[in-house]
């Protein structure tokens, strides 16, 4: 059961042109600017923000753009702490610029399926008071294999230093809206309050952890977060790309998955990863993967010098990119997502996320 309206279901995206005068002197420029305050408020309110950092320059170097991205994100982080309950121990984490974009073998582009960055230890969880499985003691899903650091990424983002052969698109999905709809479909009635959704999510995370020896995933998938009981829907393809294969151990431990990656419910999805996603959302939302995109997806076309930031916990993000695209990942993180400040921030996310989808409509 999904409602007709898509109001409040799609993530709102704000584009902010950062003034050249501020870029010239970010430290002297201070924090008292409406563009900065608006961007912080928009992020805190569940939206995504694109900061255009090209300023007046025709072609700023990538090094210069990375300096600007750090400055802009540091300023926003300070405002998020001062005005929007971001925990005081949150900080900006800047990775190295990428060398390119992994595709399927010999691919020219890739569709990165909805995911959260650093999702072995960064994903939406219930508030501790609404956790009946002990998930919130560490908020860690897996800890043996990860890219870099086991930080908890609250906001994810990246600066585009080279778009590549074609302008890529980034997509955002409101996870609380998807949870709302999956809950309503499962139970036959919409959730009365955010607490019901938190309990639902907690049960779904616990189920996925219990099935870990079967699905072998390091990240929660859309299917697992939305409550699928089929271990195949807890499997994330390599990448996680639409075009990509699963791990041999996943094929070995879930024999039924062979059939699922070979044909999807709608018959339109291309690639093992996309077809498996189509099965997962059909089981939980009653929508095929193309229908899921049509209902929830907000799209942003990224240009060189754009810094795209979104909530890494209440949103999932996806991307369609050229093989030669390069980016510099930047995130706002905490080392340990526990304690009263984190809980207060999370409380705000659940409350407003539930309000966005119309509360108990």
């Amino acid at each position: 059961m999904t409602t007709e309206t898509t109001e409040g279901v799609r993530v709102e995206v704000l584009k902010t042109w950062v003034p050249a005068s501020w870029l010239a002197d970010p430290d002297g420029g201070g924090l008292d600017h409406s563009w900065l305050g608006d961007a912080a408020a928009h992020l805190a309110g569940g939206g995504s923000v694109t900061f255009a950092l090209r300023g007046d320059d025709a072609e700023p170097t990538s090094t210069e753009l990375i300096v600007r991205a750090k400055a802009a994100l540091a300023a926003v982080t300070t405002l998020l702490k001062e005005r929007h309950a971001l925990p005081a121990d949150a900080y900006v984490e800047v990775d190295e610029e990428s060398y390119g974009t992994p595709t399927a073998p010999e691919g020219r582009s890739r569709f990165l399926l909805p995911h959260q960055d650093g999702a072995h230890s960064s994903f939406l969880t219930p508030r501790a008071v609404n956790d009946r499985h002990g998930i919130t003691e560490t908020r860690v899903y897996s800890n043996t294999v990860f890219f870099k650091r086991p930080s908890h990424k609250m906001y994810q983002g990246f600066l585009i230093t080279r778009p590549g052969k074609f302008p890529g698109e980034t997509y955002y999905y409101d996870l609380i809206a998807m949870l709302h709809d999956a809950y309503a479909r499962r139970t036959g009635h919409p959730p009365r309050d955010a607490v019901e959704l938190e309990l639902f999510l907690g049960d779904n995370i616990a189920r996925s952890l219990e099935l870990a020896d079967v699905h072998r995933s390091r990240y929660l998938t859309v299917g697992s977060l939305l409550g699928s009981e089929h271990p195949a829907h807890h499997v994330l393809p390599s990448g996680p790309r639409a075009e990509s294969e699963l791990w041999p151990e996943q094929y070995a431990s879930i024999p039924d998955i062979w059939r699922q990656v070979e044909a999807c419910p709608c018959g339109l999805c291309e690639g093992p990863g996309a077809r498996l996603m189509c099965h997962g959302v059909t089981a939980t939302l009653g929508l095929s993967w193309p229908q899921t995109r049509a209902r929830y997806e907000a799209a942003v076309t990224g240009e060189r010098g754009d810094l795209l930031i979104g909530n890494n916990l209440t949103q999932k993000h996806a991307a369609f990119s050229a093989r030669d695209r390069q980016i510099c990942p930047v995130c706002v993180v905490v080392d340990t997502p526990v304690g009263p400040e984190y809980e207060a921030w999370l409380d705000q996310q659940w409350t407003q996320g539930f309000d966005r989808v119309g509360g108990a409509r």
Partner: protein
Amino acid sequence: MKREHDGPVALSVHEAGHLVIAHSQEALTVGESIWSDQGFTYTNVGSEADWTKPAEKVRSIAAQVAVAVAGGAAELVVHRGVLPEELTVEDVLAETGSIDFQLAQEWLALQRHDPSQDAIEAEVLDVFHLVAAALADRGTSALVSELADRLLARRRREENGTVRLGSTEPEVAALLAGARLPAEYPLTRTTTANLISVTTH
């Protein structure tokens, strides 16, 4: 593991290739090769590597990549008797199959955020050549054939069940103990010095 396999003999050699190379890798532990009642083959490989230590992380990734391409390399070298020289990415993809190739790629991609696909493909090609050269050794080829024959014989004795060839079975262990293979393979295209550090503010 291969979706596009060319018959039971090739498939048994493919899986024995995984088993032999996995056994040779210092950074890995190997369990058993499985031929399931669903028709697929698979070899269990594990690692105790500490990923917070960059050198250990790279060694375990390199070993996993070698194991991933070993099935395709064994088919080419041991089953078809071809000594590979100038292979392309397309050739290697045809030998390994898409699942194993992407497994190798996935391990390489875990070295850092978003490496270049060109570098990944070049690395897979390099490691494939190294593993194929190692398997081309007469004694090693004979070992792979011997293990493949055993796996295939078990398959033929029990046509409808899942059959296994375990690396710790005394006869298998004795055969594997006689192998002379490199204990690790180098990575040269995808490693970065700065594996786990990031700038923070």
